[in-house]
């Protein structure tokens, strides 16, 4: 009975949220935030991957920006330099990133905790150095411009308005897929590995294989986001994919609540708002604020800001319902 009421509410909330998302880019509504929302969507995709890996499976990665960058650069190079269809480039990028993550994951998931964190941090730096140094492919530190837009049939995604829908189509698909995975046998296996790896192995879960698989999935998400980023901006440069970019993914995941799929939107939105709307004139202060946020959230609400707010809200509601 209660469950049915709850699910009815859920449908209403979801419908309203969808209507909101569909109407948002129109000028008479919140059109001025269209490009902000595109960044939020792209960042959400990267963040969800890290939530699956870090929040659900308990495995740290401080190098997610590397996969984001590989996606962006492979898409950019194939579509611009070699004239390959951008969609095909995107698929090739995701496949290449996934394969790369598989090989790396196979090697490094023998490591745990601090060592894994350092290994992924190092990996991210290596990839960043490659972006900077291989100038004949990547344009070096200046990056490359003139990346074509995506298009379907005769329609080209050459306006922010159209790209908004494109990005959010991908973003919602990634969120839905992730939620389905979390609520499945696979999701339980991932949480089991987080809870106790020894216990997970003891009931027949191949922990190493699941870690590698979820690492690959997170890399593919990041790669798709990177490709969308490249075809949205039409120019890319290494500075978007360095150490700070990887830390930003951690910041977004931490704010959203590490073990929360939909919290990723909240995390990405908070960071993008700060970065693109509120702190434009602040110079490096945004980094200071992110550092402070990481420390404060982990010290006071390790489950994440979004999850904490959600549970406070739910408790209030329960208390209200309890009172006649």
């Amino acid at each position, binding site marked *: 009975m209660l469950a049915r009421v709850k699910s009815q509410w859920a449908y209403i909330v979801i419908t309203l949220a969808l209507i909101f998302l569909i109407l948002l880019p129109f000028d008479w509504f919140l059109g001025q935030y269209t490009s902000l929302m595109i960044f939020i969507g792209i960042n959400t995709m990267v963040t969800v991957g890290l939530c699956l890996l870090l929040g659900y499976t308990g495995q740290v990665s401080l190098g997610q920006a590397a996969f984001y960058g590989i996606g962006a650069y492979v898409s950019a190079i194939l579509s611009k330099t070699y004239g390959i269809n951008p969609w095909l480039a995107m698929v090739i990028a995701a496949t290449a990133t996934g394969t790369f993550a598989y090989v790396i994951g196979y090697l490094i998931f023998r490591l745990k905790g601090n060592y894994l964190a350092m290994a992924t941090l190092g990996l991210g730096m290596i990839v960043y150095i490659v972006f900077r140094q291989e100038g004949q492919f990547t344009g070096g530190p200046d990056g490359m411009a003139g990346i074509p837009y995506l298009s379907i049939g005769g329609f080209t995604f050459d306006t922010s308005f159209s790209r908004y829908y494109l990005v959010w189509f991908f973003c919602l698909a990634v969120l839905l*897929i992730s939620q*389905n*995975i979390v*609520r*499945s*046998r*696979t*999701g*339980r*296996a991932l*949480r*089991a590995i*987080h*809870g*106790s790896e*020894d*216990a*997970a*192995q*003891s*009931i*027949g*879960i*191949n*922990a190493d294989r699941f870690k590698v*698989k979820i690492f690959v*999935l997170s890399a593919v998400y990041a790669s798709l986001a990177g490709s969308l980023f490249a075809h949205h901006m039409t120019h890319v440069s290494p500075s978007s994919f360095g150490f700070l970019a990887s830390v930003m993914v951690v910041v977004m995941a931490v704010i959203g609540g590490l*073990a929360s799929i939909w919290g990723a939107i909240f995390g990405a939105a908070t960071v993008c708002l700060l970065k693109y709307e509120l702190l434009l004139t602040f110079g490096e202060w945004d980094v200071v604020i992110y550092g402070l946020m990481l420390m404060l959230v982990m010290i006071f609400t390790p489950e994440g800001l979004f999850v904490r707010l959600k549970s406070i809200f739910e408790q209030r509601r329960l208390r209200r319902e309890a009172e006649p």
Partner: protein
Amino acid sequence: MSEAILETRGLSKAFGGLVALNKVDLIVKAGTITAVIGPNGAGKTTLFNLIAGVYPVSDGEIRFRDVSLRNMPPHKRTALGIVRTFQNVLLFDNMTVLENIMTGQHPRSSYGFLEAALRLPKAHREEEAITLQAMKYLNLVGLGTHAQQNALSLPLGQQKLLAIARALATEPQLILLDEPGAGLNTLEKRELSDLIRRIKELGITVLLVEHDMPLVMGLAEWVIVLDSGQKIAEGTAAQVQRDQRVIAAYLGEEVE
């Protein structure tokens, strides 16, 4: 009845220079309750960890029915039908009671990432079966009313029962119980004994390491005694209790 389900030959394990287990031969007969006892540091836990595959064998052989377990990773042993519990319980603290047991069904289900991501019919079908099976084991250990609670909100006694239920959900042929009685009060120990007998009635072979002598003597049909990494005696509970070497091994240690 007399068929061996688990057999070790010359099983040894050394950590650096320290020999924790030295050429142990043992046979566990199918359908029995067998106990491994011994003073602290006798090598009981090492033996368990070798059977479960936590670390590699230094020397010797372990066979489960006719399969050699050497070099087999732990999760494959579980798929084969061996499961273990832990002294320190190790429940999944980020899950409910029911979810803990559902996770135990892992090796008996097969749908993967793709089926889960796209919610294909196979995922649905298996999820229903998993939930049904999990409820069965939940009721077997008498925790049916606690299904939706967080696993760590249970008192220790019930946590231990839950850990056993989670292990049973893998549908094993052999279950290894590592000090299941530790930290339990008299009443909880009686419940535990009953449960272990019920497990045997399900046709599952039980091998347990236990410190609590009355518990062992009341349950085990066959007792193996380890001391300083070696097997020093085995037999029925009554035989072992009269064995001079066993008494000597326990001298200086309080026999509980």
